[in-house]
Structures are given as structure tokens and as C-alpha cells.
């Protein structure tokens, strides 16, 4: 043992003698902090909960993968490295950082402890912590490349059921699928929710002579399927006001069947490309879906009824 280490032990022993019992003085503070932490966690858990996004879909090309926030600095750092050096940023540097951390006590091994007496190590610590914080900040701020689409969970559940129950064996959607039953995109909107629900409960009860089997579906499954089938359609007929609304508010930028300006996309066939919910969300707040959109938000500009009407009109453009 070096003399300064012996001296340290002696000094520490004296400090300990002057000190107080761990319980309850220090433990009281520990318990109080634990209580605060527990309160904060409970608030976050009750108020925000833990989000569950849609079911993993390996074929999805529109998702914006984001790591958990504490990996964001690494995620952000990767952007600064060209492809050939990516392994350096992704594996070599973090690995080296961990090894460096483990080795810190041996590199900074003298008796001095006060941060101001260890300027190099203090500066290095501030630099490293600041770097991680800055990268995390910019990682949080980095824009999402793909538009985020808010989907109705009930519609998504219905879509899963549609594939689980092999409905496409008999039914087609916009021409894709079996030919035994009707095209569901054409049917949707022409029937009420209640009719569809009665139909799912027992097809023959509302369509005598139907060859569709009775599926013994659960009530919530019937609701999900109904929401899905309704989402395929146009939402119902639009009023004669809708085309006028479009001419007044939208043709400044958009083309419809050869009429209008070309600042925004041509919307002549938008109903075939986008589902109704997407169109409605986009009209209400384009930035939610496409952050760099220059289109103004129409929520507040138009009434809810007008937006619904316009949505149905656009959904009819196939």
C-alpha cells in the first residue's frame, strides 16, 4: 500500500467516525427519493401508459424505425459516418467507450478527487456527457422521413381477421381476391353498420340464399370486421355542395379531371390510392401526415360536416 493510500484510509476512517448511522439518516433520504421516483413512474404509467403500436409488419415500407431514446445518440452518430466506416461508429466506438470507462480508475489513479483538481478528467466527462446529450437532442429533433399514418385500431383488427378467416377466398377488394361473393369495396358504404353486423352474425338472416357460412364470430370481432369493411368504401354519398367546396378551396392548388392548378398533386384518382381515413386526416392537418407539406390545415377553416363531405367526394374519385 502506498503511503497516500494509507493516509486516505486513515482520513476516511476519521470521516466515518464523525459521520452518522446509515439508518435512518441516509436511508430516510433514499426512501424519500424512492417515493418520489415511484410517484413519477406511477403518474407516467397511468397518464401516458405504455404505447402499443400496430402489429409488426415486415412488409411495411412506410414505417419510420426509431430506437428507444437512450439509443438515439448512437442512431444519430451513425448518420455522420460513411457506409464503409459504419462499423466504427456502430460497434468499435461504443465498445471502446465501455472499455475506456472500465479503465478510468487506472488511468486517473492519483489521490486527488475534487473535480477542479482533475481538470483533464472533468473536462473529458463534461465533453462526453454533453456529446451524448447533444446527439440525443438532435436525434429527437430529426424529422420522420415517411409520413406517419394514423390508422384506426379497430379497422386494423378487422383487416387481420379478414386475412385470418380467409375472406379473400370468396371476396375481392377493388378487384383483388375471389369471385364467389361481392366486391367489398363496392358494397361498403351502401349498407348500414347494423346491416353488416346482422350479416356477420348470420348471413342468411339478412341475405336469404347467401352461400356465405355462419362464422360464429364474437361480438367484438363483428365490430372490427364492420369497421374494416366500412373503411374500404367511400363513407357514403357526398352532397352536391362537395364539388363546389373543392372548386372553391382546393382547385387553387390541385387538379381534378383536368381542371385546377398543379401546385399540389392531381387528385382525379385519389380514392383508389388512399383510404378514406387517410384523406380526412390529411385535409384536417397535412403536417401530421407529411411534415414538409405546404398545404394549409383545414381544421377550423371548414366545419366537421364539410370536411366529411369533401372526404367522401375525394374517396369517390377512383
Amino acid at each position, binding site marked *: 500500500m502506498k*503511503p*497516500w493510500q494509507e*493516509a*486516505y484510509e486513515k482520513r*476516511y476512517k476519521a*470521516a466515518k*467516525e*464523525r*459521520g*452518522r*448511522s*446509515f439508518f435512518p439518516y*441516509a*436511508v430516510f*433520504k*433514499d426512501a424519500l*427519493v*424512492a417515493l418520489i*421516483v*415511484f410517484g413519477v*413512474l406511477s403518474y*407516467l*404509467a*397511468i397518464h*401516458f*401508459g*405504455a*404505447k*402499443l*403500436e400496430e*402489429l*409488426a409488419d*415486415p412488409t411495411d415500407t412506410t414505417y419510420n*424505425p*426509431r*430506437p*428507444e431514446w*437512450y*439509443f438515439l445518440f448512437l442512431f444519430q452518430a451513425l448518420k455522420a459516418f460513411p457506409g464503409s466506416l*459504419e*462499423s466504427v461508429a*456502430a*460497434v*468499435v466506438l461504443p465498445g471502446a467507450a*465501455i472499455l475506456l470507462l*472500465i479503465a478510468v*480508475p487506472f488511468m*486517473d*489513479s*492519483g*489521490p*486527488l*478527487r*475534487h*473535480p*477542479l483538481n*482533475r481538470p483533464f*478528467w472533468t473536462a473529458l*466527462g463534461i465533453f462526453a*456527457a454533453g456529446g451524448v446529450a447533444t446527439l440525443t437532442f438532435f436525434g429527437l429533433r430529426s424529422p420522420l422521413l415517411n409520413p406517419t399514418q394514423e390508422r384506426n385500431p379497430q379497422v386494423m383488427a378487422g383487416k387481420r381477421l379478414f386475412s385470418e378467416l380467409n375472406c379473400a377466398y370468396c371476396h375481392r377488394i377493388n378487384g383483388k381476391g375471389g369471385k364467389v361473393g361481392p366486391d367489398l369495396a363496392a358494397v361498403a358504404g351502401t349498407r348500414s353498420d347494423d346491416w353488416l353486423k346482422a350479416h356477420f352474425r348470420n348471413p342468411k338472416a339478412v341475405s336469404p340464399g347467401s352461400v356465405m357460412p355462419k362464422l360464429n364470430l364474437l361480438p367484438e370481432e363483428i365490430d372490427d370486421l364492420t369497421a374494416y369493411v366500412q373503411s374500404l368504401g367511400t363513407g357514403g354519398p357526398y352532397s352536391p355542395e362537395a364539388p363546389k367546396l373543392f372548386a372553391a378551396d382546393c382547385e387553387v392548388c390541385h387538379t381534378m379531371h383536368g381542371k385546377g392548378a398543379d401546385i399540389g398533386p392531381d387528385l382525379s384518382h385519389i380514392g383508389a390510392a388512399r383510404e378514406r381515413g387517410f384523406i380526412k386526416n390529411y385535409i384536417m392537418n397535412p403536417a401530421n401526415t407529411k411534415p414538409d407539406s405546404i398545404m394549409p390545415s383545414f381544421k377550423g377553416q371548414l366545419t366537421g360536416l364539410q370536411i366529411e363531405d369533401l372526404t367522401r367526394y375525394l374517396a369517390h374519385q377512383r
Partner: protein
Amino acid sequence: MSASNDGGPRGWLYERTGVDRVWDALFARKVPEAQGWVSWLYTLGSATLFVFVLQAVTGTLLAMNYVPSPDHAYDSVRYINTSVVMGHYLRGLHHWGASAMVVLVGLHMLRTYFMGAYKYPREGTWMIGVLLLVVVIGFGFTGYLLPWDQKAYWATMVGTNIAGQTPFIGPYLKKIFRGGPEMGAATMTRFYALHVLVLPAIVGALIMGHLFLVVWHGISEPPTRAADADAEKEPGR
């Protein structure tokens, strides 16, 4: 051992288990006193331990309604969120607790670093602490996949691809993580086993070592310039 002779049930218990001596060694021991706001910095380690225990409890409960398989994981998590009594709250606690672990471990580490508390004789405590940080990150990474939603799937896709970029062994490492060439059922069972069996065993052992050393050496006293000046006078350093 004064309490052990009082003849009552307490004395009986003390004589047979020695809990009074354990209590004296762990809780009635004296520690250097920190003054003012600095003393609150010394609660970060115990706060981390508290959240870890909370994670263990909530995690155990969540495991009772969870299936680590691509077919059922998502539905079972949704079931916890919507149908099980208190399930929403417990999953929320576990989710936010994971972030709290990272925050608290980070703050605890910064305190130790800037106070020079990793110095003699506490180098071992520090090194175990760094390993604990790595394990906590491992918990976060393996736990993130388990709900099998879009976020989980794609974050793990990116994460395992990053592991695949390790020089020389990358391609093998990626397949080991995924349990095969593609992400799927084998990835989930693997991550689940790591998350609920392997990592808890490792973290348990490391925490024991960490805490033992904290008690053995005593908690470090706050650094002062006066103490440093004293130390500089020591010969032979």
C-alpha cells in the same frame, strides 16, 4: 449481541439467525456525512436499486400473461393493456421504469465520475458499475422487442443489423442474435429468455458484488479541496 439475551421471541430469532448483526453491519454502520444538496446525490444508487426491484416485480407479473411468440405476443400484450385488472398500470410502470433505470444509472455514474469516487480503494465497485450499465442497456434492448409491434420489430431489425457490422464476426453475431437468418419466432424466444432468465441472473450477481463492495469499503466521502491538499503533502505518490 446485547439484544440476543432478552429472552423474548426477538432474542430467540437473533440467536438463531444473527439478523441483528446483519442489521448492525448493513444499516447501523456509520457513514461519512455529506452536507446540503450534495447529500441527495448519494440517493441515486439506491433509487436505481429501487427501480430495479420494481422492474423485477412488474416484469414477473407481466410474464404471467405474456407469450413470446410472433403469433401471440402482440395480442397478449394488448390483453394485458386492455383486459387484465391493473395490467395497464403495471405495463406502464415496467415501460417507464426501463427509461428510469437508464436515467438513474446514468446520473449515478456521473456523480461517481465527477466526485472521483472510483478511486482507491473503490476501483472494483466502479468496474462492476460499468458492467451493470451494459446489462441495463441489454435489458432495454431485449425488452424492446417483446411486444412485437412495429416499433419493436423495426428497432430490433436495426439493432441486430448494427451487431452485424462488427468487424469479422458480425455476420455470425447477427444470426446468433436473431436465432436464424431472419427475425421471427426464434428471435423472440431468444430475447425473452435473455430478458427474463439470463440477464436477471447476471444483474443479480453484479448487484450483490456492487453492494458488498459499497458496504465493505464504506460509501465515499464528498471530495474537498482541503482533503486533496492534505493528500498532496503525502510523500511517495
